[in-house]
């Protein structure tokens, strides 16, 4: 038993000395950790409110922002932040009419990608960075970006904390929440702004096209595995962390893209959670029958 744990410790030590001798891997781990926590927590509410498609659209609108920022010589990260937050707030203000309408969101999303392409067309030097925005480039994160990510993460979680109680109430029981005086429109709008922030951070790691891997996969798995709010949030953040950490390790040794490794892990963990809850459900049915 102790030999197994010794071997395990040796492997971990070997991996970490090996990997962390590179500054870019250190940076990648720190950035991925910050982002995973934010994505896991914000994504939990996105899944609870069944607004994952809206989250997906915000990231695509962010893509237009990122390439547009490149065009006027601003950092793509800020373009991403400004566009997705603005789009989130606008979506919230328009209300139910838009935020739960697949077609309207799908059209906006496609339009935003189109504009993103146009901006790329006129700023060809940015083209190499386009892949980074679309699929993420966590290995290129520098110290300054980490600082910005950390700051954004704090802002995101503080705002989310401020609206959390009415957000949960209005997500679970909208009719009752409205009758009890919850400012529904305000809560929904602020939340979509928060999602815009989280999406911008998430896109730094896995890219705008793969934000689902961290913002939907872990929370959806967590909701199948847990029954409480805090345990759900904790498990969601923890799963996101496991996915980015393991993803980075696998990518380091295989030379596969990090985002691919995270995507695979995210899908795998979600699948395991679904199978587990299905088998639990059938067991409780058998118990009820007995």
């Amino acid at each position, binding site marked *: 038993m102790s030999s197994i744990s010794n071997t395990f410790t040796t492997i971990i030590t070997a991996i970490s000395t090996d990997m962390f001798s590179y500054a870019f891997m250190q940076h990648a781990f720190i950035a991925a950790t910050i982002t995973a926590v934010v994505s896991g927590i914000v994504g939990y509410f996105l899944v609870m409110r069944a607004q994952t498609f809206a989250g997906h659209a915000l990231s695509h609108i962010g893509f237009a922002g990122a390439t547009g920022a490149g065009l006027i010589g601003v950092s793509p990260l800020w373009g991403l932040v400004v566009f997705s937050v603005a789009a989130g707030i606008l979506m919230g203000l328009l209300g139910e009419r838009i935020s739960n309408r697949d077609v309207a969101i799908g059209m906006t999303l496609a339009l935003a990608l189109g504009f993103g392409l146009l901006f790329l067309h006129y700023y060809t030097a940015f083209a190499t960075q386009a892949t980074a925005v679309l699929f993420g480039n966590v290995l290129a994160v520098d110290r300054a970006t980490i600082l910005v990510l950390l700051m954004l993460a704090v802002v995101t979680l503080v705002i989310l904390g401020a609206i959390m*109680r009415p957000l949960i*109430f209005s997500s*679970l029981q909208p009719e009752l929440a409205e009758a009890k005086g919850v400012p529904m429109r305000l809560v929904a709008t602020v939340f979509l702004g928060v999602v815009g922030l989280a999406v911008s951070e998430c896109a730094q790691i896995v890219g705008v096209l793969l934000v689902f891997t961290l913002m939907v996969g872990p929370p959806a798995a967590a909701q199948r595995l847990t029954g409480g*709010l805090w345990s759900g949030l904790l498990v969601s953040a923890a799963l996101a962390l496991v996915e980015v950490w393991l993803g980075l390790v696998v990518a380091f040794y295989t030379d596969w893209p990090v985002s691919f490794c995270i995507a695979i892990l995210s899908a795998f963990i979600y699948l395991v959670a679904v199978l587990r809850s299905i088998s639990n459900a059938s067991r409780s049915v058998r118990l009820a029958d007995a």
Partner: protein
Amino acid sequence: MNVIEFDSVTLAVGERIVLAEASFTIGQGEFIGVLGPNGAGKTTLMRAILGLLRPRSGSIKVFGRQPERGNSLIGYMPQVRTVIPELHMRGMDFIAASLHGERWGVPHVRPGDRKLIDSTLSDIGARHLADRPLSEMSGGERQRLLLAQALLGRPQLLVLDEPLISLDARHQEVAIDVVRNVCRDLKITVLFSAHELNQLMGSIDRVLYLGNGRAVLGHPDEVVTGPILSKLYGTDIQVIRAEGHVFVMSRGRDVEHIEHLHNDHHGHQH
């Protein structure tokens, strides 16, 4: 004191007039059955009482004041219950989320709140639902959970929109009993909308029958009559009473039964 006063109130949803110039008053501790055909405005009337819909004209007074959202004297159980079925949240957490759910900040359940939820669940014989995940509850169990939630914080007025939908016959009786007892013991006024009059007959004090833009409030024997219901339904209605049961018939068919079947189409999930 009058709990609810309607003074020539007109309610409209968009351009459609749901209720025209309705006047009635409901006193403290009354158990009122709210009946009427589909689309007669039962839910609209309740939304107006809750302050979610302003009357187009006339005045509504609830506890002597204009209805306002967030009145803690009112316990409400909405009809469209968008409880996410695959949610693995425990009953206790679900209810706790609604308690003080309108306040800002991070949620936390105080021990006192937990005790309050526990005792309210026990009151209606649903204590075991506190630890069960919503995803494993039947439609009837969820209903009881929501009823307990509406009773939290000792409201003076209970507004229950179709609380019997998706309950089986036995649980329907239990639900009516629970509400009637609460109404009598705590002198709470109850508005209880339903599809079938017969289940409520022995329990309600008065019936508020809606239809065709009108509202008639009175003892079931006075209101549920051929002439009055014919006006409310806008068609020729016969009322047949037999062995304590009331049958509301239109051209030889049981109107309530037809309504009920129609509603099962989208309301039943037992």
